[in-house]
């Protein structure tokens, strides 16, 4: 046996965007989510800076941060549909054969697409209904905070349908 003293470098993993007809849309969605995360950091740091350095805490940071959180959430979660990254239990599917695994996976994707359609439809209705209402302390309408729902819903539907068509028996976990 060899000595116990030495250290290897850590793995450098990255998100791999799977190929497919909607790959460009997935890349753009994840880039928007990542960008929202960076902006979220800057907004929070600005909040600390204005409080301690300028002695005048910015009032707009909280609603803007929440809008960025929703943007990051729905765009990244939609890409998660495409990459089968969401928490789920495939126990029944694992107990069945390849054919039924594909059928069950398509049922799950159909349910996801249906929920996406609900988000898109009702989200859009809420955007329109609250567009004229100003968000307290922020320079944008309340309706904007529902926009990630509506756009995210459309992305959910798109990625779920893309994945349902792309499913092959060997690719279903």
């Amino acid at each position: 046996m060899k000595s116990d003293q030495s250290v290897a470098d850590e793995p450098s993993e990255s998100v791999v965007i799977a190929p497919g007809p909607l790959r460009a849309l997935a890349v753009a969605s994840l880039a928007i989510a990542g960008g929202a995360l960076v902006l979220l950091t800057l907004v929070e740091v600005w909040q600390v800076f204005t409080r301690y350095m300028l002695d005048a805490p910015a009032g707009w940071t909280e609603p803007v941060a929440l809008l960025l959180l929703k943007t990051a959430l729905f765009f990244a979660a939609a890409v998660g549909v495409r990459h089968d990254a969401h928490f789920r239990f495939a126990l029944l599917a694992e107990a069945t054969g390849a054919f039924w695994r594909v059928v069950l996976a398509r049922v799950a994707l159909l349910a996801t697409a249906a929920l996406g359609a609900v988000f898109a439809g009702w989200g859009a209705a809420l955007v329109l209904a609250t567009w004229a209402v100003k968000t307290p302390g922020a320079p944008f309408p309340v309706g904007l905070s529902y926009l990630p729902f509506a756009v995210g819903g459309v992305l959910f539907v798109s990625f779920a349908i893309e994945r349902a068509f792309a499913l092959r028996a060997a690719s279903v976990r």
Partner: protein
Amino acid sequence: MALAILFGVFAVLLALGVSVAVALCAAALATLLYLGLPPDVLVIETAAGTDSVTLIAIPLFIFAGQLMLHGGISSRLIAFASALVGHVRGGLGQVNVLSCLFFGGVSGSAIADVSAIGGSMIPQMVQRGYDRDYAVNVTISAALVALLVPPSHNLILYSAAAGGGISIADLFAAGVIPALLLTLSVMVTAYVIARRRGYPTAEFPGLRIVATTMVAALPGLLLVGVIFGGIRAGIFTAVESAAVAVLYALAVTALLYRRLAWREFRAACLSAAQTAGVILFVISAAASFAWLLAYLEVPALVVGAIREIADDRLVVLMLMNVVLLVLGTFMDMAPLIIICTPIFLPVATSFGVDPLHFGVILIVNAGIGLITPPVGTVLFVGTAIGKISIAQVMRTIWPFYLAGLAVLLLVTYFPALSVGLPRLLR
């Protein structure tokens, strides 16, 4: 009937392989329609689920952890741990456990722990003659420590699921002693097995090497101090401390270690976004489900039902442990916390259990679930890195399960282990 629809639709969709978040929303929608309530409650409540400022800390802590992961911190932490405990019998096992504790203080995530530390340590251990099952068992058991040390995003998740009224600073403090207990229990278990299997020892490298590796690892280790100290001293809120942690991680990895180029930054950013998106979507989806639980007075029903079975706090805690352990084998961490907190926390508090104490019990239970089949994400990642089957790991993991269960019992029946430190620091 409404309850049967809520839980029935949820269970059927889960069984069909629908994602937890979608199943939660679909069950809520079906129940809303049955009750004749406006269906747009679903979108309004799901939106409200992300309106908690506390939640902003979760993606930011994940981002900080990813920056550290991609920016060269883990090799320095492993080097320091190696200098400290590498000379003990089965030294690489001890190094693995200590590295998981250190890295847990940087990432706050068990999956990140097992990926970063396991990715380095498991191949090294196998190469040096340690059995694969041992290498994987040590790594996945030790990785659970990350769930309890600051900046554990699971503790923030619990605070959010509890309605945001539980101080995150107190929760971070509550996890520290149980995390150290878990580390100790895994180290002792790993040592006993290492002796029985005759694993090697190495020479102590000397205090100079210990000091050198400590200096190299210190900027990473200080992240915990920045977060914990900043919140405790009232300088930052939990969310602001998460943003400062991101900046700190950027400064350490890009300027000090010089390992974070644009490529690594982009990878960390996208990886954090994807992970955070999945977790936040479950939180958001669970809001409408939780709204219906409250509307249908489920917590009060559960409290009443449990009071009929037992009236003793210790028995109730044991019952909850059994239920949570069973649920933990089937459910992942985030959904378990989000779904069980609104149901079990009122039960616990009605029996006089401190919410901080219950939070730690919940996290330890859910953590053990992460290394038990059929659904154990940390187990899956560990076995994938170790290139070994789950069945092979299961044959020899039981001493580590016993160690985890012993810590769970200690944490359950000695509340001071969780609530003592937060009270001391107040």
